[in-house]
């Protein structure tokens, strides 16, 4: 009788301990899903490696890119990979061994990885005066980067400069990309339509997408406005530019983005601006901070800092 009582009590005790285990694990153990990680409720900052180091990501859902994705990645003390202020991630306009060149070079002949410019491409590049961190950079007010007057970055530059947070939303007919920088969005049609013939140029072009397999979504974009630059180093494009994006969902928390530039007028062959560039899923509660280029703020910056910093010497 008493033996039975002891075993009942032991069982009850064991059950209560087991019942509490998940709660205990939640408090003290590593997170098991990215959604277990707390972020700032408003204006959230993206998570970096230490925050999600213990997570073993689940398998990716089929044919689903939705979520809030971080492209800033793990900077390891340097610039966040998504910022790309010396140009597209795969072709930075830097000097060998120096990712922070002083600028002022007449061309890109000294950079480690050369782009296959056509003669028109090379000439158009020279007409573009970038003001970022690349080898050809000039002081802010001497440049002609369309972003310096807050013109739209356009596509593909939205993925090749200040690429930070990208929210993806899907419905039956579209995949929507909502991008933090400039608060821009793109519609990728998945309703079976083809790309337009002789389209009127648009800053973000015309995009259609299809699933190559359950985890790989391929997007083709045409009809891009020639006034935009491809990246922060002033890489040019013509209206014949065709861009392929390949979103490959590796697992639940990780995606890779490959962007291929194909513009036969400016380049003698296609080139990959991003090659399996990592995007990291953020918690569902992540709140995207706004990021605008504000013309009046830019004017104030130029008046207070940009113009006087290149004015003649003064003592």
């Amino acid at each position, binding site marked *: 009788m008493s033996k039975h009582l002891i075993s009942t009590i032991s069982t009850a005790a064991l059950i209560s301990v087991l019942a509490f285990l998940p709660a205990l694990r939640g408090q003290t153990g590593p997170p098991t899903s990215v959604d277990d990680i707390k972020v700032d409720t408003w204006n959230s900052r993206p998570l970096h490696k230490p925050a999600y180091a213990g997570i073993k990501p689940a398998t990716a859902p089929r044919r689903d890119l939705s979520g809030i994705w971080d492209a800033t990645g793990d900077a390891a003390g340097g610039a966040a990979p998504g910022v790309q202020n010396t140009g597209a991630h795969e072709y930075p306009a830097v000097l060998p061994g120096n990712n*922070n060149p002083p600028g002022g070079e007449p061309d890109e002949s000294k950079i480690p990885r050369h782009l296959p410019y056509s003669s028109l491409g090379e000439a158009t590049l020279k007409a573009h005066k970038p003001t970022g961190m690349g080898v050809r*950079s000039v002081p802010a007010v001497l440049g002609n980067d369309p972003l310096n007057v807050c013109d739209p970055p356009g596509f593909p530059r939205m993925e090749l400069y200040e690429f930070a947070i990208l929210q993806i939303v899907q419905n039956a007919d579209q995949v929507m990309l909502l991008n933090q920088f400039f608060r821009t969005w793109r519609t990728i049609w998945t309703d079976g339509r083809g790309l337009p013939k002789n389209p009127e140029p648009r800053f973000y072009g015309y995009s259609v997408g299809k699933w190559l397999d359950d985890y790989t979504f391929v997007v083709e974009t045409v009809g891009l406005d020639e006034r935009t630059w491809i990246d922060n180093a002033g890489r040019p494009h013509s209206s014949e530019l065709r861009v392929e994006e390949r979103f490959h969902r590796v697992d639940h928390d990780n995606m890779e983005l490959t962007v291929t530039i194909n513009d036969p007028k400016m380049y003698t062959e296609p080139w990959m601006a991003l090659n399996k560039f990592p995007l990291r899923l953020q918690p569902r509660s992540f709140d995207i901070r706004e990021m605008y280029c504000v013309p009046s703020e830019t004017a104030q910056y130029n008046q207070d800092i940009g113009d006087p910093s290149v004015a003649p010497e003064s003592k």
Partner: protein
Amino acid sequence: MRNKLGTVSFLAVSFVAAALPLFAHHGNASYDTEKTVTVKGVVTDYIWANPHVFLKVDAKDDSGNTLHWMIEAQNIIAQSELGWTNVMFKPGDQVVIDVTPVRNGRPIGRFRGRIVINGQEFKPLPR
């Protein structure tokens, strides 16, 4: 001219390991990246804006004249990542700030690391 550019590149290479900014919307072209100036003074204005957050500080030079310093940081997202906020500085704050100055001698610079606000050193968030 080519020689001069070559020298500048070489010096920049040798300096890159030191405390250069994390990244910048605008490049180094107008900055003397080999120099550090310590600005000690009083905040007169703080502009939390894009493409650049910047701070105005009144500081005395060696002769006792007041210089109106303009010190620029990067954009709002980049600064938030480092733990900066829109209320981090306020007019009247006593500050000590290390800056990379512009080449033309004007009191304009870029934050390059040390920031002390009313005696407290500001520690950026780790990345």
